[in-house]
């Protein structure tokens, strides 16, 4: 039997194996991790006719360049990604949300994400990866998950197994929605901030700084004045939590966040807007909009219906 694998010609900036994350370990300091943009992760596996939680390769801004060795395999890319396939003598422009074949020695060059951060590569097969605490998701801080908890490195090999014959060549019509407002439910320390600060928080725009990664987004904008206490006794966090640091800047917790923190929480991004939030690249602006719990729950149901609808279109 032919061995099928990718050779990593260029690893990309922050390329990791991810699935839907680790459950039930926050109490020992291990965050959820998992694919940042859940919808694009789920769709990637659906297009590949894979199991829902099959490991994928997640890349950020600049993706990897991979050479396929073996018989043949189909893959698809989700997100808003600019990529090419290099076959013998020709270069083919890649199309997202569609299965594409790779044959022996073909190269896949995931050049960059467009006005977004994360993209996903799925194959109609399984990447041969290690699991830790029931998940392959790489957490580079705790050095756990697939690939010894590390990002991809140049010249390494990614083994591919269980190649399936089931695939469709139809392109899924899906456009990643443009970022409007990020909707937020008020947090338990909302009243730590001055009246003016609370108004500014929902009125002004904040810039996404370069200090942004899988752990969190640091924002810059009008200073949010704390009138009570800039520190609280450390307590648990969830992804999407917006803390205000002592210098008055917001930081938003993302999937690899520290499990506890000691800054007041002004709000939490609603679950339905999390995928949009993580895709906002450094240099762009965010505007927060206040929303109540009941509306957030309704909006989530619509988000989930839309995801299921997209999945059903891949069948």
């Amino acid at each position: 039997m032919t061995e099928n694998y990718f050779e990593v010609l260029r690893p990309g900036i922050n390329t990791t194996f991810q699935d839907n994350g680790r459950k039930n370990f926050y109490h020992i300091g291990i965050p959820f991790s998992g694919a940042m943009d859940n919808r694009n992760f789920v769709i990637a596996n659906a297009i590949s006719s894979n199991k829902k939680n099959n490991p994928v390769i997640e890349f950020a801004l600049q993706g990897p360049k991979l050479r396929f060795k073996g018989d043949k395999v189909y893959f698809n890319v989700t997100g808003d990604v600019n990529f090419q396939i290099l076959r013998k003598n020709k270069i083919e422009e890649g199309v997202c949300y569609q299965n594409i074949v790779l044959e022996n020695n073909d190269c896949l060059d995931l050049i960059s994400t467009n006005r977004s951060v994360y993209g996903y590569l799925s194959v109609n097969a399984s990447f041969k990866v290690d699991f830790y605490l029931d998940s392959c998701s790489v957490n580079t801080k705790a050095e756990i998950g697939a690939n010894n908890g590390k990002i991809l490195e140049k010249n390494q090999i990614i083994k591919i197994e269980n190649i399936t014959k089931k695939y469709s060549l139809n392109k899924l019509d899906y456009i990643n929605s443009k970022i409007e407002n990020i909707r937020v439910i008020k947090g338990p320390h909302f009243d730590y901030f001055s009246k003016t600060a609370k108004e500014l928080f929902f009125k002004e725009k904040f810039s996404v700084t370069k200090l942004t990664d899988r752990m969190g987004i640091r924002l810059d904008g009008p200073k949010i004045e704390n009138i009570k206490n800039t520190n609280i006794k450390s307590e648990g966090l969830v992804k999407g939590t917006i803390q205000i640091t002592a210098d008055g800047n917001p930081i938003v917790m993302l999937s690899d966040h520290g499990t506890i923190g000691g800054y007041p929480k002004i709000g939490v991004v609603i679950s339905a807007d999390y995928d949009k939030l993580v895709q906002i690249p450094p240099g762009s602006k965010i505007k927060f909009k206040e929303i109540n719990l009941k509306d957030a729950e309704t909006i989530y149901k619509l988000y989930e219906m839309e995801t299921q609808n997209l999945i059903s279109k891949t069948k």
Partner: protein
Amino acid sequence: MIKNISNLGDAALYCDFGNDVNKEINSNVIQFFKNIKKSNIPGVINITPSYNKLIISFDINITNFDKIKKEVEQLNFKNEIANAGKLIKIPVCCDNDFALDIKRLEKLLKLEKEKIYKKFFSKKYYCYMTGFIAGMPFLGDLDDSLYARRLDTPRVKVPKNSIGLTEQFCNIYTFESPGGWNIIGKTPLDIFNNKNNSSPNLINPGDTISFFQISKSEFEKKYD
């Protein structure tokens, strides 16, 4: 007991046990944590105990805030689950190479280092919570005379396995990490074992820790 339950976003419960930090309130938090964990409420995906709060996050596809809140309030609460904390002994080497902030503490606390170590090693510490980085235990309470504020500028890299003090607490840096606690020594023990696939944490909330001092040669031997 829980004073108030509110929502933290649309997929988590924020259980408030008050504002004080003490062992009594914290053991209450841990009792709740263990009871909720055992009761397997559908949809619960993470429970994070801390000094005086308990955050329960849930899968919004399976359940919602109102449902989980009711289930937590109606929990068939068993007290005995809580009394299972272990006693764990941790060796610490206080060689100058590892005790990065001992000189600062001597000045700040107006105590000689021998006295600082004597006070530090003569007490047992209670684990309030673990987290921030994987496996990091937050332990207390220190003797009053050892209360020191954080470094004015946090270190970019605190070496792995360093023992740090701040206010009434001490901790162990389970990984190299940024941090502002006053470092007084280093343990050769790995507190978080990322090769252990079932229980990677040596120290869990509710456990009791006693530190004992070892020499540099003992420290190096344990590393072999």
